[in-house]
């Protein structure tokens, strides 16, 4: 029979073997190269993240081994068993092989049980929630912003961090080396608290309270970890950013003291003087009805915001200068109500008015002061 493997030209075997070796060499080279690093999660910043990373590495090792084995077999077969002009008779009609089939059922079963045991052990560490954490923070997610309520040991609110990112002078500050417990709360839709360098996310589900613990590694003091909402929560989903700011205990204590002092301070007085003009602005379905406003230079003016959305949706009208700096930061107006914001005199120029809760194009406009 011309189909007997021994009588085939050995060139096929050489080619197929070379292709399999080539596959292995390429995969290993990629894994060892700089590009190979992108196949791993970013550096783990917390105790839980380190555990998850260990588990990832185990799964990854099995994945690479299985990929090379099966892909190698496919590459070998495709090159080795091409039909040649001499192949007129049928190849051996193999219908199966019991021992082989039992083997490739049993070995994968053992592998997945091993992987399950590893993940189960890691899960118990990562999911553990301490009754006595060092710091308790309630992260409140709303379309489309995060606020962080710092709680004392009895669950009473100490102060609220309303600015969620460091760029805007905020962020969720935490001391390194301490057990932080985050309690997740949503009043509207489902969100997810996700920080890539924590290798962790947890859904923020209205109607239920999720908690998780983490401890930021001591050598991460001074670092800021960008996170964002990971569960689609509406049009502004992508702008729901947050920063976790890691501090030394001393810096953190000072920060807490300052935040408590701020919370107890009397609010700044409203700009005095009668407004020279009152502008009308309506917000509906998270969109301003006007995107161009004009106000006189060097005189106080006012904007009346009519928020026609449902009560859960808050808006405001902040004013930014041409460089993007916040000139006026106003309180929120809840849905179904209206509020008149008073603004102090502004020099002539072009400004941006923007809803800080929904800073996307539909809720942004140009304020011309002249």
């Amino acid at each position, binding site marked *: 029979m011309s189909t007997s*493997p021994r009588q085939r030209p050995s060139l096929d075997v050489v080619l197929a073997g070379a292709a399999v070796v080539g596959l292995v060499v390429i995969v290993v080279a990629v894994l060892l190269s700089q590009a190979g690093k*992108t*196949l*791993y*999660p970013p550096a783990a910043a917390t105790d839980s993240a380190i*555990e*998850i990373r260990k*588990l*990832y590495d185990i*799964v990854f090792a*099995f*994945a690479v081994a299985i*990929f090379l084995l099966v892909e190698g*077999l*496919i590459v070998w*077969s*495709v090159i080795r*068993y*091409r*039909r*040649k002009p001499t*192949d007129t008779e049928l*190849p*051996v*009609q*193999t*219908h*199966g*092989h019991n021992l082989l*089939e039992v083997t*490739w*059922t049993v070995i*994968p*079963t053992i592998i*997945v049980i091993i*992987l399950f045991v590893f*993940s*189960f052990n890691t899960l118990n560490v990562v999911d553990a929630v301490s009754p006595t954490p060092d710091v308790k923070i309630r992260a409140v997610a709303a379309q489309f912003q995060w606020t962080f309520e710092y709680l004392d040991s009895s669950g009473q609110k100490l102060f609220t961090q309303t600015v969620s990112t460091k760029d805007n002078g905020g962020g969720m500050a935490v001391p390194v080396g301490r057990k932080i417990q985050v309690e997740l709360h949503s009043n509207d*839709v*489902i969100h*997810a608290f*996700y920080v890539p360098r924590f*290798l*962790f*996310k*947890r*859904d923020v*589900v*209205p*109607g239920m309270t999720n908690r998780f613990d983490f401890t930021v590694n001591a050598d991460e003091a001074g670092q800021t970890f960008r996170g964002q909402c*990971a569960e*689609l929560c*509406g*049009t502004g*989903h*992508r702008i729901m950013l947050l920063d976790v700011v890691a501090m030394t205990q001393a810096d953190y204590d000072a920060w807490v003291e300052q935040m408590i002092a701020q919370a107890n301070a009397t609010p700044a007085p409203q700009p005095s003087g009668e407004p020279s003009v009152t502008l009308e602005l309506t917000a509906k379905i*998270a969109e301003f009805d006007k995107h161009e406003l004009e106000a006189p230079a060097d005189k106080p003016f006012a904007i009346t915001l009519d928020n026609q*959305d449902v009560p859960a*949706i808050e808006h405001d009208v902040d004013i930014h200068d041409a460089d993007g700096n916040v000139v006026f930061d106003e309180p929120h107006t809840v849905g179904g109500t209206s509020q008149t914001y008073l603004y102090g005199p502004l020099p002539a120029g072009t400004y941006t008015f923007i809803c800080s809760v929904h800073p*996307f194009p539909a809720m942004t406009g140009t304020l011309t002061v002249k």
Partner: protein
Amino acid sequence: MATHALTPAVTAGYRGGLYEWLTTTDHKRIGILYVINSFAFFFIAGLMALAVRAELAQPGLQLLTDEHLYNQLFTMHATLMIFLFIIPMLAGLGNFAVPLQIGAPDMAFPRINALSFWMLPLAGVLLLAGFVTGGAAAAGWTSYPPLTEDRPLASTGSGQDLWIVGVVLIGTSSILGAINFLVTIFKMRAPGMTLFRMPIMVWTMLVTSVLVMLATPVITSALIMLFIDRNLGGNFFDPATGGNAVLYQNVFWFYSHPAVYVMVLPAMGIISEVLPVFSRKPLFGYKAFVFATAGIGALGFSVWAHHMFTTGAVFLPFFALITFMISVPTGVKMFNWVATLWGGQLTFSTPLIFAIGFLTMFLIGGINGAFSAAVPVDFALHDTYWVVAHLHYVLFGGSVFGVFAGVYYWFPKMTGRLLDEGLGKIHFVLMFVGFNLTFFPMHMLGLAGMPRRIADYASSAGWNDWNLAATIGGFMIGASFVPFLWNVFVSLRNGKVAGDDPWEGNTLEWATSSPPPPYNFDHLPEIRSERPVFDLRHGREAGGSH
């Protein structure tokens, strides 16, 4: 039979005008209508994906500055791809192949068969109508409440309601089709066609139909509850009025995870037809393959909550264990396919090339799924682009490559003409390279923390390069359909005449003319094994014993 394929007879099976196509109850014509309809929605949904990829190519909002429209596009991309392309495309190929492969003259209920089909274009129009009634559904194809109950910021207009009605209609069509397949397979097999002589394609359609029949009513109820919540003041899923948001996810995924197998098992069936034919060997481990298919079907009902690991409302160890276990029967199939190639005589016609594309890509889709089965790793990967990579390696690398293997394989049987091999190979190379360029970098994006379903990202996030690569790949995939469509166009006119059995097939459809007559068979060959046409060609002894 072989002398029957004279050139003039090539299209004789489908003579007749538009009216006959619109009123047909012939399973072959209905199958072809399914295929055409599915491709139409495939191209619409594909264009939506290209718009999404174009927006993501660079940081900053360039193309889709209306982010609500962006959300509508990715929502409808997934909805159309799942409900109006992959599921009906496979049902259509099954519709064409199953009666032929079991030696039946038609499906058991030809009129119900036509009804199942005609619900699909109607549902498609309803789904798309959202775009002109104030915005299509925009809360993702999963449509999680309470977001879907939140009219101001997610589902303006009636798009979400149209979406619910459209998907319920498609579900009804699927249930009717599933019952039709089950009755056909159990009651209409030709004499000698015992269960264990059925082609694997028929087995996978059988298990798929069981999944559809048991799971689809569950999502239908979830969607009706959502509709009541939205329109009649119900409070099933909105915690603000005493509902439970996670309840929807449980009910939704109870269908939608088995739906993954609905989208993959028939593609596995196609591969299991193509690999033996083009390697001139029987499928290795036929019975193991049948049991693995049934095993996947059974376990497939116990893994739904692995889509919900991060909700904090799932009994994690159970669902993690079953999710790991379901990879075992899938692995068995992979080894069976490779063993089928092993020692064979491989002819690299386009169907085999797409089948091997399926093997290599579905392998990656299986392996990267294991990462999410390890629950703590899923905490890192869930809802990031890693998941987008995973699901596309399964549903595109798996199902869609399988679909094209099937289209190239059965096109000559459907039309009497062969597709051009050269254009077919250009199609494959463009699609294969484009596919990997699009979806492999998404693993890296997900690991680097890029969430799904965002229209924009900061240029400082470090996601720029891989996003650009993915966009280039996406347009390459888009370009790959130019040679495909051209191929269909020219081959229908001037393609090589196929004859009854251009591939030296194994199964009964190759024992009749191409295209087959309305009643399918003048006479059937003896059925003594799972390869009756092979036995006819080479003699029963040549087939070897089990």
